[in-house]
């Protein structure tokens, strides 16, 4: 990745600290892309390419055409960059949002691909995934918010978001009624949203 003066400081262990970014740094590559600045495409591909590829590899079955997806995502990013609002999302969060929409869409429309998604995770695996993710809490506000949730809801959200399991598979794997899983995920995300809007979230995230 080429030197980019905007990338020292706000990126900590691969995690963007939004508050530090807002307080101390200039525009992220995404904002430069919105202005069609020279070199913005290169900066975005370097800054966000590994994120998009990592997300695609995580959520798409093995063998999926990730490179083709990346091209779709970056073109879509160029189209959508003008809607990026740093007051509402981090630049990496915005990129991940755009990428996830494409990935979910591809999963839904690639019937043969969706068939290869591993089903019925074991309770042990779900727990391991949860522990591994929560262990990477670092300074990301969203992960701090996640860590504040009751263990069960936190685990369901990790399974749904990080591992890409369907709500039905989560219910099956955890021996929980489907309706309970759905409402638990919704309420957990609600609680995270509410906490992230509090001054405490900003204060905890400030180094």
């Amino acid at each position: 990745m080429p030197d980019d003066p905007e990338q020292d400081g706000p990126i900590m262990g691969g995690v963007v600290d939004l508050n530090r970014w807002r307080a101390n740094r200039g525009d992220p590559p995404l904002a430069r892309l919105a202005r069609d600045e020279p070199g913005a495409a290169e900066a975005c591909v370097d800054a966000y390419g590994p994120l998009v590829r990592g997300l695609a590899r995580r959520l798409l079955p093995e063998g999926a055409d990730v490179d083709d997806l990346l091209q779709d995502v970056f073109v879509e990013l160029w189209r959508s960059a003008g809607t990026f609002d740093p007051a509402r999302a981090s630049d990496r969060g915005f990129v991940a949002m755009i990428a996830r929409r494409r990935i979910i869409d591809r999963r839904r429309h690639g019937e043969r691909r969706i068939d290869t998604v591993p089903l019925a995770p074991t309770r042990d695996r779900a727990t391991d995934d949860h522990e591994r993710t929560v262990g990477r809490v670092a300074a990301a506000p969203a992960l701090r918010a996640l860590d504040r949730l009751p263990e069960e809801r936190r685990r369901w959200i990790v399974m749904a978001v990080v591992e890409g399991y369907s709500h039905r598979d989560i219910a099956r794997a955890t021996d929980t009624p489907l309706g309970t899983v759905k409402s638990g995920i919704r309420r957990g995300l609600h609680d995270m949203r509410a906490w992230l809007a509090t001054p405490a979230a900003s204060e905890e995230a400030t180094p």
Partner: protein
Amino acid sequence: MSRDRTEIDDLLVRRATEGLDADDARRLARLLAEDPDADAEWVDRLVGELDAATVADDEGALPADLRARLVAAVPTGADPGPAPTRKGRRRAPAERPERGGRAAPRWLAASGWAAAAAVAALWLIPGGAPDPGPLDFPAVAALSDAVVARWEPGGDPTGAEVSGEVVWSTVHQTGVMRLRGLAVNPPGEFQYQLWIFDRERDERYPVDGGVFDVAPGSTEAEVPITAKLHVDDPTLFAVTVEPPGGVVVSDRERIATLASVSD
């Protein structure tokens, strides 16, 4: 929280984690249209932050050839214009070469269009008129007056495997085509051109909806519609195969795909 807002949030969560089928997508669009104060993207944003925080970057930089392809795919450096207009340059050379005034139209025997259109399906989404927001397919589909129609093969081999939908908002004069299975075209040999039939216009004179390409390696093309004239009440969308740059009047010899809006 109201029951409807709870249902909206349930659908938003499912959209961000599993995706929605067509019925649920329409249901969400309807609920959002009826509740313009609802934040339609809060789950997407939060899940995006979680993704950004949990995807490891430890795989390092992209391979050089992939990086070069991605950089080349992003058409920066051109005059960006206002954000919605920029969508017109996505993937496709949406701006065609300047042409002179329109030649006399030759849309003869439009009954052929009407007959072919009878096979397509339609959904109408009633309600108010929320802010259009980002104009990708889901955003347009969520507009209160959005009309969605399915693509069906139009007879030309390029569209034999076609599927997908087109969404159009008359209030906002914007739309997006989502096409799967449409053959990749060599832009130097031929390009696709969209035509929009408007109930308020003579069916011999469909509105030019723009020229676009399907890039090699794509499994799906999402193409914004850049209608050259105001469309009041679309009844049929048609994609034809035309010479590079498109034409003023199509001879309709090669119809790749059709999407009909029924009453």
